[in-house]
């Protein structure tokens, strides 16, 4: 969800979306959804010779799963903030995983204790 939130801050900015099929589209980011589907407006295809039919396309919807890179304009990105957010997300994911482990271990011990009690 971090990158969804991040790309929302980029709405209205000039971006270049590079697809896995090597097509690169430059345009203004109109919207982004949780699957990182991008809507761009006022687009232009970077390699127009290869995709001549897209010259008359002005806005488009790009499926998130086909995106390879998104090029951003550097002044619009607070890299320090993004790094910090990424670090915190990684930390909270780790904590969630650790929290889910001790109860499992505790239940195991109880089961073993019960077993020992009954045998003796």
């Amino acid at each position, binding site marked *: 969800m971090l990158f969804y939130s991040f790309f929302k801050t980029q709405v209205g900015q000039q971006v270049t979306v590079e697809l896995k099929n090597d097509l690169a589209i430059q345009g203004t980011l109109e919207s982004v959804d949780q699957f990182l589907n991008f809507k761009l407006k006022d687009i232009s295809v970077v390699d127009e010779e290869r995709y001549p*039919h897209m010259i*008359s*396309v002005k806005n488009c919807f790009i499926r998130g799963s086909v995106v390879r890179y998104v090029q951003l304009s550097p002044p619009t990105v607070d890299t320090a903030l993004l790094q910090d957010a990424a670090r915190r997300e990684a930390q909270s994911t780790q904590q969630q995983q650790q929290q889910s482990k001790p109860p*499992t271990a505790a239940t195991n011990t109880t089961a073993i204790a019960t077993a020992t009690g009954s045998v003796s």
Partner: protein
Amino acid sequence: MPAILLKKLPDITGPKFTAQNTTVRCDPPSTTVPTSKGTLYIDTHQLVFFSSQSNKGFAIDYPSIVIHAISREPAEETKDSHHIYCQLDCQFPGTQQNSDTEQDGTEDLFAELRFYPDDKDILDDVFAAMSECAALNPDDLVEVYSDDEDLDGHSDREVNRLDDPSIQSIGEFDPSNFITSVDQLEQLTPEGKAVLKHLESVIVLPEGQENGRFSDAEKTQD
């Protein structure tokens, strides 16, 4: 299957939008694409085009549609060419293999579909409906959560151990079998009595310490 050819109109469960009198074109050209006008159904599960005139059509899953867009020539006189543009991540069935593209070496498996509805005013509605349906049909999240799967897989194994029937059979807990008072000692088996006798001979509790044996520990804690 990314694109399925249809010989009859399938059940359309919940169309978000329907575009009548639409012409379709495919690039690279395919013989299976209907040449006569048909109807474009933007269904919640797939994109369906069917021409009842030539009795054929096709259905495409949304994950196969890489890009969809509105193509508009700026000049008003070319309004007839306005259309919905779709790029697919696969080749359309029945595509004629062009010798040029094979020699080219760049055998990109992709196809471009263009839908030209007679009514150009609906282009925005078609685009909006397609965007909505694309979001309703995300890709499988296999790649995205591959990191978590490893960690989860580890904890899952621990959980599974609890369900292990061998532990359950050892740990059957029946308090009614426990001996809690002196008069129940008669219930003990001969082996049990022998074990008890042995235990009583080895464990000697110092007098007066039974109740006070943890008093030190409590003091140190304070």
